[in-house]
Every structure is written in C-alpha cells, then in structure tokens.
C-alpha cells in the first residue's frame, strides 16, 4: 500500500491540501487519502474534492486534545505505509505533526511553501523559509513517509467534482488512547472579524503611525477601497493597537490579496514574507530608503499623514 495522506482541522485546510496532494499522488501514481477530525461530512466532502478515500478520526466522547489520536495515526501509517503525509500548519497540528514524525522516525519539513516532484528519484523536494524569511531552504526527507506541514493559504483549494462520493468511502478510526493533557477552558482571543486571509484588499498599519487613534486614517482608506485593516508585528503583538489575528508576517498570517498597501511599514523581511503572494504591493513611507520600496510595485515616498488624505480624495473621485 502507499498513498499521499492529508490531514487538516477544517474543510478549507483539507481542500487546499487536496489540491497539492492530488498533483503529488498522480506523480507517485498512488491514491490520495484525507483525514478529518470528528466531522464525517467534512470527510465525505473531501472525496467530492478529489480524495480517493477519507478517514474520520472520532473522539470516544467529547472533543479533547488531538494527541488522543497520536497512537492510532502512527499505527495506521505503519500498517499502510503511505509515501507522504501533508498536514496543515496550524498551532495544534504543527505540534501533532512533530510528535507523529518523532514516533515514526520520519523527516518533517515545517511550513513548506513549495513541493517539487523529483521524477528521477521519485522523491519530493520541499521548500521553506529560514533566517527570518530571508532565505529559502530546499530539503528532502530521508525517511518514508516523507512529511510536511503546509501553512493554510499556500495552495488554491481543490474544486468539487460531481458524482464522486460513493457509500463506504469514509472509514472511521475511533480514539484509542486518553491524553495526559486536560483542556480546562477555551477563551476567545479577541474579536475575530473578517479574516484578513480572505480579503481582496489589505491596508497594513506600520510603525509610521504615531498613535493608536491615527489608525482611523488607514480605516478611511480601507473604507473607500473596501479593504481590511492589518498590522505589522510591532503594531499588533507589541503595541496591541490591532488584534494579533491581523498580524501579517512570519509570526502572523500569510495574505494573498489583489492589493496590499503598507502605510508607514518599513518592510522588515519577517513582515514581507507574509505578503509575497499579493498581486500588487504598494507602500507609503517617508523614508525613501525603506526596504518596503524594494519589494513594492508602486511606492509613494511621503509622510502618510499627508499622503493618505490626498489618496482618499483622489480615490473617491474615481470610484
């Protein structure tokens, strides 16, 4: 037996993994299997979206720590010998992936952003960022299975095909072990408004803003462009001017909007890493030498307090 296996916490993640998983499974000449947690419907949907088989990992009782499935997943891999495991890079799955890899004595490429099939060696070469996003490391796993975690948003979602789902395509693996960890509580982190990952236009607030109140300038621009507000790490995680869920960069979210406009963003590599897939990158910064201009399509050299109102006026005229 062989196969390319994908594991994600929700449909969106699974569908993305299925699109890259499908192309790899075809190259290996093998099957594509999706693993979902608890949700049998999500598992069935995976078949509609290209999986040959789907497995739902079911809790015995209430939902709990994911590591209750760790022994069962490891056994399943040992028994069925897949070529490759692709796992969504969420906080919990990154931990689970590393623990699965350790038990299997398998190599794992963390936060893989590109996979290239090496036809001669029948292996997959995987690319990931290192040195704070300034370098691309290309690795191969010397183990079987090869493993990778893939950040959500890296690949397009696989489309649904019709008439794919048949009865009995979804298997069930029921939790076999208990976890040593008890979940005491789940606290809402902060108001999670529209996910900036999905936004077509993103206006990013950088340290060029002097105080929190001034963010309303960025909001005015966002309103006229119907975009979402995001921030750099200092503005979100350090100053807490914006929620952490709006942090773009290596420590935050990767976005791929049509339009990104950085206001007072200097362009540190850790931030720029989070927007490399934007279609058009624009920047407003009063420092003509700010690194952000080196990675922008269109840059305005000027004080954002002067430029943004002018820009809003001009955009209002045209829209």
């Amino acid at each position, binding site marked *: 037996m062989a196969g390319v296996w994908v594991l994600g916490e929700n449909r969106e993640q699974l569908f993305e993994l299925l699109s890259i998983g499908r192309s790899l499974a075809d190259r290996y000449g093998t099957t594509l299997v999706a693993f979902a947690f608890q949700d049998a419907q999500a598992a069935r949907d995976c078949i509609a979206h290209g999986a040959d088989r789907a497995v739902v990992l079911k809790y015995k009782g209430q939902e709990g720590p994911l590591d209750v499935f760790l022994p069962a997943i490891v056994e399943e891999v040992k028994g069925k010998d897949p070529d490759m495991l692709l796992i969504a890079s*969420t*906080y*919990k799955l*990154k*931990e689970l992936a*590393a*623990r699965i*890899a*350790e038990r299997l*004595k398998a*190599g*794992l490429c*963390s*936060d893989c952003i590109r996979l290239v099939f090496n036809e001669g060696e029948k292996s997959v070469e995987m690319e990931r960022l*290192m*040195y704070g996003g*300034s*370098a*691309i490391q*290309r*690795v*191969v796993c*010397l*183990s079987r299975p090869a493993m990778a975690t893939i950040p959500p948003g890296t690949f397009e979602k696989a489309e649904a095909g019709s008439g794919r789902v048949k009865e009995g395509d979804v298997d069930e693996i029921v939790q076999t072990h208990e*976890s*040593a*960890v*008890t979940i*005491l*509580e*789940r*606290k*809402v*982190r902060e108001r999670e408004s529209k996910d900036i990952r999905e936004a077509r*236009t993103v206006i990013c607030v950088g340290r060029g803003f002097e105080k929190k109140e001034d963010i309303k300038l960025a909001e005015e621009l966002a309103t006229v*462009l*119907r975009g979402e507000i995001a921030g750099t790490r200092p503005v979100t*995680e350090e100053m807490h001017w914006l929620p952490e869920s709006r942090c773009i960069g290596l420590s935050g979210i990767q976005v791929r909007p*049509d339009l990104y406009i950085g206001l007072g963003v200097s362009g540190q*590599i850790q931030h720029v890493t989070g927007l*490399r897939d934007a279609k*058009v*990158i*624009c920047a407003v910064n009063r420092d003509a030498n700010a690194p952000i*201009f*080196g*990675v*922008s*399509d*269109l*840059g*305005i*050299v*000027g004080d954002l307090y002067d*430029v943004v109102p002018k*820009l809003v006026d*001009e*955009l209002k005229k*045209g*829209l």
Partner: protein
Amino acid sequence: MLDIIVCFKWVVDEAFIRRTSSGDLDFSSVDYKISEYDRNAIEAAVRLREECGGSVTAVTVGPPEAAKGVKDALSRGPDRAVFAEDPLFGGLDPSQTAAVLGQVISSKTPFNLIICGEGSGDVYSQQTGPRLAEFLGIPCAAYVQKLTVKEGRVTAERKVEGFIEVDSLPLPALVTVLPDIATPRIPGVKDTLMASKKAVIKVGKNELTAVPPPLLKTKSVRAARVERECEKFTAEVEDIKRFVAALQKRGVLK
C-alpha cells in the same frame, strides 16, 4: 520546588546575513546570538523559579563556538548549564537535536518541567520541543503564552487559531513558549561576572549512546527574492493621481 530545564540554541544572527550583487547569501560577516525565542524562554524559566523555588538548568547542543552562548545564557539567570558539544553539532536536524537533548537530559539532569522556545531563530522548524517530549515520553503543550505551576501540574495558556486554550498537564512535562511569555532581561556587568562562576557540565559525543542519522537533507539554501516593479511616486497631488491611475490599470480597484 521545581527543577526546570530550559533549552536554547546558538544561532546565526540573520541581521548580519548579506546579499551579494549576484543574489547569493553572504555569511562572511555574520555574528551569532542566543535564538531570540529562547531568550524569552530562559526569562520565563527564571521567573518561574523565583515563584516556585527550585533550579534552572540551561541546556544546549552545539559546536564548540556555542560556549559563548552558554555564558550568555548563564548571565540571564539559570543556575547551571549543560553543554553537549561537538564540531558536528552545528548542523543537526530537529530529530537529531531532540535525540541529543533527550539523552543528555535523561542522564545528567533530573527535572519537573522543560521549557523550549517555540522555534529557533535560524531554521524555525518548531519541531525540537515536541520531538523531545516524545523522546522522553512526557506530555507536551506548544505555543504557550502563560504558565503557572501548582500541586504537581502545570497550567498552560496556549495559542490556537481564534482562541486561547487553557491546558493542564501533569509534571514532568514539556512546553514550548511564545515570545509573549516573558520579556528577557538585559544582563548587567554583575550578571556577566556571576555567569563565569556558574557550573557548566560539558557532554561530548562519545558520552552519548548514539547520535541517530539525519532524517532531513538540505539540498540548497538560497536568498529569497521578491521581484517587483519598484516604481516610485512623490506625495504631490499630480503624482497621487498617477498612482491611482496605475492602480486602475492593474485592475485592483473595485
């Protein structure tokens, strides 16, 4: 009383990596540092010791040059250090690092709690902590931003997409921590002097049962490139008009 192990890595300071005119990475003038995530982990360990009593042992795996990092780590408050040292230990993959740490920890240092940074500043694989927990067969919580220890259990507030999950783990346990966990201190002259008096237990490769073969092979490391048009405008109204026209031309205005 709590015996804490904090793991750290001596890494290339990426701020010193230059890009040559041909676009290659130039490491000729690099300096090294304790991985930033690990500085916060060390601070968290030291503060936890101040609350609960006990000890902090800083553990690292690295080449002989990492001795500088051991001294730096000790100036940040740990009581002692364990340094697994070998010229080959500069290029281990996460599974090998976890195996070496695991052997060193189980043979040299009794502990209740292991704290690791969420990932290292160079490779940022975020695997060593969870792999080490598996190696030692202890429970694990990753991406923790708040820690409390009480009655043989650790309560860990961990970051998850959309919310915070509060977990309770029986000791001994391992946590990987986010930078939010604690802001690292800046060691003073006195701390640096004190550090040179603290015990450093060195462990050579021959004292370990085995260093397993690597599971990952790096084929290449190249500079990341973002290729963009880099067209510049001024803040004059006429230029702003041209800017808006350029956006329109690219079809990104709705």
